[in-house]
């Protein structure tokens, strides 16, 4: 990337950091512009709430700004930034968990919509995402970071600051837990399934 000293937004990360540390806060805009989408998306995966994910990402950027002098350049800036952001998000989610419960997870798609395969697939995806958020934090974080980094175990390990072997073990255990949650539907799910089934049956008979 070419750096244009006149335009802070086009600075490289290294140049922006140097300028910020030299006392030019506006140079941080280049970092914000470059990393806002990944950071908001990572926050989104932790909370699944657009407003909150932007608030969390803003907090992560603020934390990065305050601790920029601690970045020694030993790793890529993105590694440092993601690790810091993941830490902020995990703390925030621990303080105020995403409003999900296992009862809300394994909901079957409405049978009347089952004909629409795309809708069903979307519903299935959402169920999986919510189920992952309801996992114990260490398994949830491993799965979220692994897929956020496009299934890159070393990148997830660097962000979580844990060994790669630990990430793999947590991924394996997390997936197992996830499957067990789906295999064991809650009483509410069973009740809703029965109701949906009955409604579909009545609808069919009425026709």
């Amino acid at each position, binding site marked *: 990337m070419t750096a244009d000293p006149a335009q802070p937004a086009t600075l490289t990360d290294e140049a922006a950091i140097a300028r910020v540390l030299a006392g030019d*806060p506006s140079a941080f805009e280049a970092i*914000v512009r470059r990393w806002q989408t990944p950071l908001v998306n990572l926050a989104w995966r932790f909370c699944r709430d657009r407003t909150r994910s932007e608030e969390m990402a803003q907090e992560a950027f*603020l934390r990065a700004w305050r601790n920029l002098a601690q970045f020694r350049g030993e790793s890529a800036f993105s590694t440092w930034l993601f690790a810091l952001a993941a830490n902020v998000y995990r703390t925030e989610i621990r303080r105020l968990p995403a409003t999900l419960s296992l009862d809300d997870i394994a909901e079957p798609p409405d049978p009347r919509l089952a004909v629409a395969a795309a809708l069903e697939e979307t519903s299935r995806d959402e169920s999986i995402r919510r189920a992952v958020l309801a996992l114990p934090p260490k398994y949830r974080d491993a799965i979220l970071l692994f897929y956020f980094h496009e299934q890159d175990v070393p990148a997830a390990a660097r962000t979580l600051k844990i060994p790669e072997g630990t990430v793999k073990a947590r991924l394996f255990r997390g997936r197992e837990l996830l499957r067990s949650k789906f295999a064991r*539907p809650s009483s509410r799910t069973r009740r809703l399934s*029965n109701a949906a089934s009955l409604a579909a049956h009545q609808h069919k008979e009425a026709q």
Partner: protein
Amino acid sequence: MKTPRDNSKFIPAPPTDAEIARAFASQRDSILPSSGFSASVMAAIAHDAAAPAPIPFPWKRALPGIAAIAVALALLVTILVSMVLAAPAAPVAVQTSAVDSSALMPFLHSTQNANIVVWTAVTIGACIVSLVYFRRLLATR
């Protein structure tokens, strides 16, 4: 009207690895920051930059107080250790009833125990002085 008996078809199957990967694929599960997001972050940073730097802890002013507390604690530990070492081998039955306070008088009148009382009072006094000093120090900030 017939009631369906087999509801098991509505129990979702456990997700496969491919399904989990699909659910979290970036092209399916991503959002874009709102248009004002970067401006909002930069405003927060400008506000943070304009704020005065946090006041460092006044180590120079606090040092005498910390030293006083350390000395008081050391004295207290010394007194307690000397009390334990000076205790007789055989347990002495001392009446500690609040009603019969006269039983404590021989204990207090002995020279050694009087020293202990004095040193304990000095230690407590040092602690109180340190606390007052710190409260005044904090009040001036």
